[in-house]
């Protein structure tokens, strides 16, 4: 059991790390095509990473150890989440089950690390980004917890692997209004948490509109590489989780090689579909005014809460 779980975790680690940059490449490619451009190709994020790792970092005097530590923390937290979440297979590690609250708090560790990085740079933009980032994170957390709580009600456990398994065995759960509402709410917060449109524009060059970018303005070379990779892996993991909640088919329930291969393939397909859909949607969207974002998050929170209530109303 534990050996199988360890194998699964390792496989997920490798697969997600390999897929995350490709996912981002795909999303940029889709956007480029819909803008009539050719695009830089799927491998571009990997090229960028390789180049960043081969550069010499620049660090301002008076910058503390945070500048070096935060990127590593973010990357590590994203990697742990990628290892714990039920992406390729729904096999929880024995002593470290992918309990919802643990996963969320690990994600938040990464969030906090980046926020501190932004503050540590001591520039106006860093502080601004950090402040906005934390405001969004603070408003996102309730929705995440309540939404997955709604998903956990019919299953009777807050362990994500068990939730996915239950949906795999009883597909009628997926079409149930409860889970539909909850998944919509979850999708909104995933978009907010990973800094996509309409909450944050990942491609902006204008500091005043930045949230995530503004915090990493001070990082260079490998620090930047870790930050980028970390946030990409986070995006991939969360999208993968969404995919497995919406369509759990293909997720392996053991560590048999064949089923793992199937799991990897289906995960890739799900990521590709969701990523392409997300960036296609972004083409049609403008960034929300910063002070309309709380409205969006409140809406998602209310949806999540309704999902919980509905789980008692609608048998």
């Amino acid at each position, binding site marked *: 059991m534990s050996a199988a779980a360890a194998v699964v975790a390792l496989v997920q680690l490798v697969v997600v790390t390999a897929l995350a940059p490709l996912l981002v490449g795909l999303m940029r490619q889709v956007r*480029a*095509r*819909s*803008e*009539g*451009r*050719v*695009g*830089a*190709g799927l491998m*571009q994020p990997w*090229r*960028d990473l*390789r*180049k960043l790792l*081969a*550069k*010499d*970092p*620049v660090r301002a005097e008076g910058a503390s150890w945070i500048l070096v530590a935060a990127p590593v923390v973010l990357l590590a937290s994203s990697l742990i989440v990628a290892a714990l979440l039920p992406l390729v297979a729904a096999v929880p590690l024995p002593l470290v089950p992918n309990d919802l609250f643990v996963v969320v708090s690990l994600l938040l560790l990464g969030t906090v690390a980046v926020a501190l990085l932004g503050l540590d740079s001591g520039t106006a933009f860093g502080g601004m980004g950090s402040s906005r980032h934390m405001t969004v994170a603070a408003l996102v957390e309730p929705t995440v917890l309540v939404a997955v709580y709604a998903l956990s009600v019919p299953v009777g456990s807050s362990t994500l692997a068990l939730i996915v398994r239950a949906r795999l065995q009883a597909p009628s759960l997926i079409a149930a209004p409860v889970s539909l509402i909850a998944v919509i709410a979850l999708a909104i917060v995933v978009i907010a948490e990973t800094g996509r449109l309409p909450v944050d524009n990942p491609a*902006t*060059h*204008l*500091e005043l509109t*930045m949230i995530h*970018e503004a915090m990493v*303005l*001070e*990082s*260079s*070379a490998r620090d*930047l590489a870790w930050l980028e990779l970390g946030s990409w892996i986070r995006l991939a993991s969360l999208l993968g989780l969404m995919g497995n909640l919406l369509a759990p088919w293909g997720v392996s329930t053991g560590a048999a090689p064949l089923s793992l291969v199937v799991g990897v393939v289906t995960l890739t397909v799900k990521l590709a579909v969701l990523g392409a859909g997300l960036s296609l949607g972004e*083409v*049609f969207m403008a960034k929300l005014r910063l002070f309309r974002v709380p409205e969006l998050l409140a809406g998602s929170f209310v949806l999540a809460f309704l999902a919980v209530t509905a789980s008692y109303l609608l048998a």
Partner: protein
Amino acid sequence: MTIRRLAGLIWRTGMIAEVAPPPPGLADTPSTVPAPLAGSLQLRHVDAGSCNGCEIEVSAAFGPVYDAERYGARLVASPRHADALLVTGVVTHNMAEPLRRTLEATPTPRMVLAVGDCARNCGVLAGGYGVAGAVSDIVDVDLEVHGCPPEPDEIVAALRRLTGR
């Protein structure tokens, strides 16, 4: 514009980008271009005192038609993220120091790309009272693009020499 109309527009327009010309011979690539850079080039654009003619051409170069991004070049928001500075215009007295600082803030290995005649040799603005000199008078330049303003495809060609794609 409604979503339906926008979608229809995207569908009908399809690809705008021109067919990619053959990659420039690597013979005339400046020796200063480090190998690991291949395929990925982040640029920080510095307007050292330009008339904005070059800016228009640069934005055209990164627009859908010339699409410099397909060769791996991208404009970024901070020199900390950049591999090269894309400098346009003559260097005015007020911009000389910021230009040096921006270069200082760029992690090595780094390059400087002077775009436009003003950046190369002060062009029509030579001898102006506010002019501190051409870019090469302030910082070392690795690659130059002539023209007033330069053709977008010349800029793209220069960028391709750097990215090597």
